[in-house]
C-alpha cells in the first residue's frame, strides 16, 4: 500500500486536472464568456433581409471582430429586421454614418455583420442606430435574376 499522503496528492492532482480540463473546454472550446462585452455599447441596424444571421454572430470592421449580435427582432410596422449589436468599449470611434451589411464568409460560410466606417466627425453612441444598411445576398434570388435576364436577352 502506498503512503496515504502520496495517494492524496495524486488524487488532488487528478481532480485539479479534470476540473482544469472542464474549465478549458468551457473557455477555449466553447467560449463561454465573451471577454470585454460587458464594457461596451449597443447599436442597432435595420435590414430588409438577414437570412442566416444568428444571435452571437460576429460583428466586424475591416475583418476584425469588434462585437457580437445580441438580439434579432422583427419590426411589424416597417417589416424590417432589427439587429442589436454589442460593440466592445475599445471600438468607440465608429462615425455616425457608418454603414452595415450582412456578409457571408466564403461562399457557404457563416453570416456576419460587416461595418464600413464613414467620414462623419460625430461617433455612434450607446443605443444609436445605423441608417445605411445593405441586406444579405440571397443566392436563390441572384440565380433567379440571372436566369431571368438570360431568358430576356435570348428573346431579342
Amino acid at each position, binding site marked *: 500500500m502506498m503512503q*496515504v499522503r502520496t495517494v492524496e496528492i495524486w488524487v488532488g492532482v487528478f481532480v485539479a486536472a479534470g476540473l482544469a480540463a*472542464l474549465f478549458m*473546454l468551457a473557455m477555449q472550446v466553447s467560449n463561454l464568456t465573451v471577454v470585454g462585452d460587458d464594457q461596451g455599447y449597443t447599436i442597432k441596424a435595420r435590414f430588409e433581409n438577414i437570412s442566416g444571421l444568428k444571435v452571437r454572430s460576429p460583428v466586424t470592421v475591416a475583418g476584425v471582430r469588434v462585437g457580437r449580435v445580441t438580439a434579432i427582432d422583427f419590426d411589424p410596422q416597417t417589416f424590417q429586421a432589427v439587429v442589436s449589436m454589442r460593440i466592445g468599449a475599445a471600438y468607440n470611434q465608429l462615425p455616425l454614418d457608418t454603414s452595415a451589411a450582412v456578409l457571408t464568409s466564403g461562399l457557404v460560410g457563416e453570416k456576419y455583420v460587416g461595418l464600413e466606417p464613414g467620414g462623419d466627425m460625430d461617433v455612434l453612441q450607446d443605443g444609436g442606430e445605423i441608417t445605411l444598411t445593405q441586406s444579405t445576398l440571397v443566392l436563390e434570388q441572384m440565380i433567379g435574376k440571372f436566369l431571368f435576364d438570360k431568358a430576356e436577352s435570348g428573346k431579342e
Partner: protein
Amino acid sequence: MLDWLAQLGRHGLSFFERLGRGHLLLLALLRGVPGLLLRPLLVVQQVYAIGVLSLLIIVVSGVFVGMVLGLQLYNTLVDFGAEASLGPVIALTLVRELGPVVTALLFAGRAGSALTAEIGLMKATEQLSGMEMMAVDPVKRVLAPRFLGGFIAMPLLAAIFSLVGVYGGYFVGVGLLGVDEGSYWSQMQSMVDFDDDVMNGVIKSLVFGVVVTWIAVFEGNDAVPTSEGVSRATTRTVVHSSLAVLGLDFVLTALMFGVD
C-alpha cells in the same frame, strides 16, 4: 418439451432475480454514500485506484483519437474547401460523443474489470463474510467507496479525454496539415455551446460513470466465489457495461440533441 420450457422459465427467473439484486444493491450503495462523508479517505483511495491509474490510457487514447479525427476529417473537408471547419467538427465530435463514450468503454475495460476482480476475490477468499462477522457492513466499507470513486472519476476522465483530443486534432490539423490556427479556434468557439454541448457531454459521462461502476461492483459482489466465477464475472462486467454505455448513449443523444 416440458424440460425445455422449464429451462426457459429458470433462465427467465434467474435473469429477473439478478436484475432485482442489482437494484437492491444500488439502493444499498446510495444509502452507504452519505456515511462516506465521515470517512473521505476511503473514497480518496478509490479515486486514486480508479481515476489516477486510468489517466495514462485515457490521455494516450485521447491524443490519438484526436489526431486520427484531424487527419480523416481534413481529407474529407478539404475537398469542399471547408477545412476551416475542422476545429468545430473535432470539438463537437469529442465533446458530445467520443469523449464520454470512448472514455466509458476504456473505463469499463481498465477500471470496471479491476473492480469486479478485486471484489470477487474478496468474496472468494471470504474477506467480505469476515467483515460481516466483525459487524462491519461490507457494502458501506468496500462497495460504496468504489461506487462513489467511479462516479467522481469518470466525468473528470472524460473532460481530460476531450481536451487532450482537441489538442491532438490541433496538432495534426494546424501543425502538420496547415489549417489556419485562428480559424481552428475561433470557428470552434463560435460553434460549440457550453450548455448544449459541453454540459450535455458532462451529463452523459456522469450517467456512464454510475452505470459502469454499478455493474462492476454488482458483478463482483454477485460472483460465484470460485476462480472461474470471478473470471466470468469480470468478463460480464466488460461486456455488459460496454453494451449499456452504447445503448444509453443513443437514448441520451436522442433526448439531448435529437427528435424535438
